[in-house]
């Protein structure tokens, strides 16, 4: 393997790797703004210049592939002076917005200025300013903060496949915009905020809500579709503030779609049912867990039951439900549902040219692996239907009167819902395993506790079977019953 030397450290590299990536291997940080491993190389910001022996001029590390025997100095006097000067040039026009800017604390400009720039200003000229135009519901643009790295333009053209983010004018007046206030059309607009190295493009959803350094970060998996993009839920004090993609070269590279990114919102909606509900005198009423579970059990006793399980639930939940159906519902049939029109994993396919899949739930492939068949739409001879779901699976049409119990995530605004509801945890509120379309098993990790009085499905099922046993025997036996899954 070829070798080069960076700041005195010898390092092996793959032919074609640029110096920024090679330097990372030996722990040398070369600062940059316009470079992004997922986008084309433009060598525009000039921040990553390094000194290479036998080369009279500084070279940009991003556009220079390492070569055998190359000797690189990233912190020579010449290289350091240029880093300071690029930072100075960028700050000539960049406004001192840090106290009011969302990006503070996770801002490339701040970080590079602190590490590689000077601590004083030599300019006394007025900063250039722009009039902002709106860009739609996802992204807030503040053009004054832009450092013209053009990552957003390249993302739009190369990844999102739509050249809607463009640069108009030229020189110091260059403005990056969607012209005439058009809203961004792409379904991947959230990524603009991820890649922007300053607070020029930020998420409207996150605006002014929380300082980045207060956020706790939990790695988990998106439940938006069967791709299972790796993501991170950022939360504090039991509330979710943001979710962003995590890098996974095999599944979602560096990106995620807006639907997945903002999916977490439903878990916090005010009309989410987070207390058990029972039917009383024909109306739906809140109740305590014991009452609700009792009513649920009563409503299926003696009837031929059908269990529908959303393919947005985890492997562990699905297995528990299979066991439950066998032992507590007299071997009721278990069928999965999720995306209208996509009945089986075989029908799942790419829904766009980037990440989205036709299956709008995360575990279609997983539940099928457990041998659960698809719900064809006909409840057949069933007299009672128990529907388990997370927040994504689309409720199928069920004949009125036979849908008795709903377990999982429901909203008041769901036009179809049963009288008895046992509220369950959403994807952000539990651990579990999901299987994506590539057959990869991935782990959900719990970020926050189940909302309100919601419980984990395992807890709900334990309650159900415990009541059954407790009715027949004492509490000791009921513990045994829980572990043995008795009726």
């Amino acid at each position, binding site marked *: 393997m070829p070798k080069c030397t960076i700041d005195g450290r010898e390092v092996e590299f793959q032919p074609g790797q640029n110096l920024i990536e090679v330097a990372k291997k030996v722990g040398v940080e070369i600062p940059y703004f316009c470079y992004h491993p997922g986008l084309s*190389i*433009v*060598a*525009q*910001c*000039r*921040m990553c*210049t390094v000194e290479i022996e036998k080369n009279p*001029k*500084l070279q*940009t590390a991003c*556009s220079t592939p390492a070569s055998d025997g190359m000797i690189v100095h990233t912190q020579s006097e010449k290289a350091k*002076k*240029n880093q300071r*000067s*690029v930072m*100075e*040039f*960028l700050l*000539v*026009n960049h406004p001192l917005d840090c106290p009011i800017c969302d990006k503070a604390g996770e801002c490339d400009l701040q970080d590079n200025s602190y590490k590689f720039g000077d601590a004083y200003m*030599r*300019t*006394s*000229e*007025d900063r*250039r300013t722009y009039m902002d135009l709106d860009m739609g519901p996802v992204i807030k643009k503040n053009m004054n903060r832009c*450092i*013209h790295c*053009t990552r957003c333009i390249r993302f739009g053209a190369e990844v999102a496949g739509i050249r809607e983010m463009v*640069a108009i*004018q*030229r*020189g*110091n*007046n*260059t403005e990056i915009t969607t012209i005439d206030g058009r809203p961004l059309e792409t379904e991947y607009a959230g990524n603009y905020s991820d890649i922007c190295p300053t607070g020029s493009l930020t998420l409207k959803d996150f605006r002014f809500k929380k300082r980045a350094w207060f956020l706790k970060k939990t790695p988990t998996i998106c439940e938006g579709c069967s791709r299972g993009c790796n993501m991170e839920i950022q939360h504090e004090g039991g509330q979710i503030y943001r979710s962003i993609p995590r890098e996974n070269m095999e599944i979602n590279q560096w990106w995620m779609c807006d639907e997945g990114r903002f999916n977490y919102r439903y878990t916090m909606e005010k009309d989410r049912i987070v207390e058990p509900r029972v039917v009383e005198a024909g109306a739906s009423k809140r109740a305590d867990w014991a009452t609700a579970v009792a009513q649920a059990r009563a409503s299926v006793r003696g009837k031929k039951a059908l269990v529908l399980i959303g393919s947005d639930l985890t492997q562990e939940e699905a297995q528990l439900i299979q066991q439950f159906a066998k032992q507590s519902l007299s071997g009721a049939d278990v069928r999965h549902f999720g995306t209208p029109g996509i009945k089986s994993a075989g029908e799942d396919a790419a829904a766009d040219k980037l990440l989205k899949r036709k299956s709008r739930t995360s575990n279609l492939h997983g539940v099928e692996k457990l041998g659960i068949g698809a719900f064809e739409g006909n409840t057949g001879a069933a007299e009672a239907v128990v529907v388990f779901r997370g927040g994504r699976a689309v409720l199928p049409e069920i004949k009125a009167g036979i849908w008795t119990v709903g377990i999982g995530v429901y909203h008041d605004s769901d036009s179809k819902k049963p009288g008895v509801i046992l509220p369950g945890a959403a994807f952000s509120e539990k651990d579990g395993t999901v299987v994506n379309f590539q057959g990869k098993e991935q782990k959900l990790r719990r970020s926050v506790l189940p909302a309100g009085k919601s419980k984990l499905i395992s807890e709900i099922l334990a309650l159900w079977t415990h009541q059954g046993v407790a009715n027949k025997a004492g509490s000791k036996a009921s513990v045994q019953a829980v572990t043995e899954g008795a009726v």
Partner: protein
Amino acid sequence: MSNLNFEQKQSAQSESGSIGGEPGGETLFIQHFKNDEARFLKYYHEKMAGYTALKKAFGMTPAAIVDEMKKSNLRGRGGAGFPTGIKWGFINDKTPFPRYLVCNADESEPGTFKDRDIMRYTPHLLIEGMVIGGYAISANVGYIYIRGEYTREAVLLDEAIEEAYAKGYLGKNIMGTGFDFDLTVHRGAGAYICGEETGLLNSLEGKRGEPRVKPPFPAQAGAFGKPTIVNNVETLANVPFIINRGGEWFSKLGRLERSGGTRLISVSGHVNKPGVYEIPAGSMTIRQIIYDLCGGMLNNGRLKAVIPGGSSAPVLTADEIDVIYDIDPLMKVNTMLGSAALMVVSEDQCVVKLIHRITKFYAHESCGQCTPCREGCHWMESIIERILHGKGREQDLALLADISDNIGGKTLCALGDAAAGPVASFVKKFKPDFEAYIRGGKHA
């Protein structure tokens, strides 16, 4: 209307003679300029090469043609001065197809106006040169990227091209050789940066004229991603002469080693006879050009400064004009020949205002991609403007010098260097003029 002006100008020029240097020095172009008949094919057949060079070229191998170009020591006439033969040699048998030959007719370097004369008076030299060039690098498609403002010249070029197509010098199976060559005039739309070869190629492709990262160079990936050679108008117009009379002859026309042929120089500013002149390369000093060729200083003014190579060239003072006007000698005194555009400044002109205008030009023309140029050019312009309005600070001159140092050599293309070099040179050589504003209370 402008023709009237030209006729008046013409008589003034022909009096002084347009041949410089030693008597009997041969000129290739100037005798045909200002002649409204010269652009027609009829004239070209009777008085000039008349596509005989093309015929001769078809009897040579491409490799032999490239060899002849190397012998000629023709150096690119656009400003970079890169040896043309070596450039053409970048395309060889292993280079994939298709290939393109592009003529850089974007002439926008302030002070330069010689390509304009070639295109409106002797366009067939350019066309013939391009067909030969196309044959030498096996390119079947050529483009002439002409700056948008040269509306009339683009029309005249199109007419000449039409004549050439009609006579079979362009198109399919030229002169029965089986070689095809199509030539299209592509108009720019007002951007100096499109004179930079990769900016030009992006503009040709229908994009913003922003320069590209090099490598890859145009010979590897140029127009539409294919191997391309980009040459200046004057460079290509010299090709028929080189083919007809040999590279060695051409090389000897020039007076210096490694600099063959004659040069078309554009002289403007405070001289009595501004205009295009043709001199053997390296045959005159700047002093001789100003006083012998161009009739001396306008209104007997005193010389203050000379900008030797278009506004991108660092300035020379009145004491520094005894240098030979060619590429290598000027480089030795830390300036450049560039596009051979000599601008002469008398003491009537405030040099601080002048460098302000120059810096304003670069700030206006900067494409905005890279940080030092985008921010630095505008910053320098603002500082000098502030100085002009009497609000200069003591540290501003050192600051200008440092900003210039931080831009030069650090940008994606040469526009940064073009902006930085002049500022540093004016600040260094005309410090008292700046200080008159900063300390002396002078006001614009």
